[in-house]
């Protein structure tokens, strides 16, 4: 659990110190990419909690989601279709689904752990 946090911190530090910024006209697409990446990470956490985690799947979903989401939004803009909105909706729904599943799983684990401890105490 420590390694992802350290990694995130390193990333944030690098991001804060980079001399360049995302061009204003591209901000829209990177926002979607970030949403996709978050979705991939939450999906990974959920899979790990369910003991179904596959590293290759996680990596491919992370990069493919991110790149495809940004690319599709760009294409949509070129064609005058607001795929942007669709992507936001889809990823948000998945994000909340994953979040709720993770919360449920953690809750269950907590209860199991607590009841186990109580049994020990008794």
């Amino acid at each position, binding site marked *: 659990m420590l390694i992802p*946090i350290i990694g995130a911190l390193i990333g944030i530090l690098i991001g804060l110190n980079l001399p360049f910024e995302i061009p204003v006209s591209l901000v829209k697409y990177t926002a979607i990419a970030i949403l996709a990446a978050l979705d991939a990470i939450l999906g990974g956490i959920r899979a790990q909690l369910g003991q179904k985690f596959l590293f290759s799947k996680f990596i491919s979903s992370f990069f493919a989601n991110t790149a495809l989401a940004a690319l599709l939004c760009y294409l949509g803009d070129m064609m005058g279709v607001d795929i942007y909105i669709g992507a936001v909706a889809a990823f948000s729904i998945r994000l909340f689904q994953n979040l709720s599943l993770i919360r449920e799983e953690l809750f269950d684990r907590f209860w199991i752990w607590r009841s186990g401890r109580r049994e020990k105490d008794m």
Partner: protein
Amino acid sequence: MRIKVRSWQWGIGLIAALLGLLIVLQLRTEFKIRAKLPTRQVNELAQILKNQQMRLTKYESEISTLRRQLNDYDRDREILRLKMAAGLTPLEGPGIRITLSDSEKKLKEYEDPVFYIVHYDQLELLVNELWAAGAEAIAVNNYRLGSTTGFSCAGTTILVDTRRLAPPYIIEAIGDPANLKNALLMPGGFVEQQILSFNLKFIIETVDRLRIPAYKGSISFDHATAAKEEGGN
């Protein structure tokens, strides 16, 4: 088992770093935008900005092309043309030479000699005829006529600007020789009526290569200043 777990955890760490980087970059840009603009129009404004930047680069390339054209434009040639028009440069070219002088006819007692000498207005009208026939440059007795040149009469001599002329008056004009000659010799024209009829000596020769000197008078504008062109077409 433990080593296997480690290896993919490094991968997750890397991805977490990537995500952190992306989010921070995004937030930096986003905050910067928000500091200046209302959020709702950001995307439209971004689009406008992109378009304007594209147009800017287009215009910049256009400017550089035009600048190059301007440099290519031969300024010296324009100056030379204006100098030629103003009479400030000697010219040469084909044209005609007219020799005009007083009548050599022996006058009878009753004849008034006034009619048989060259008057300044005859000279002036002759020059006018030449201009009208398309002469590009005219000199009288080797004195180039400028844009402000006028003929006048001072007692018994003819003045062109302030310079005295003495007969024979040699008028040289650059232009199409045939045109000039025909215009002068037109039946019933000025020459026939005003010059030949008084038996003045009048000779026209065609010259292949005339040389006309530059205007030697002063050019000064004490009263006139350049004004803006009106209308403009």
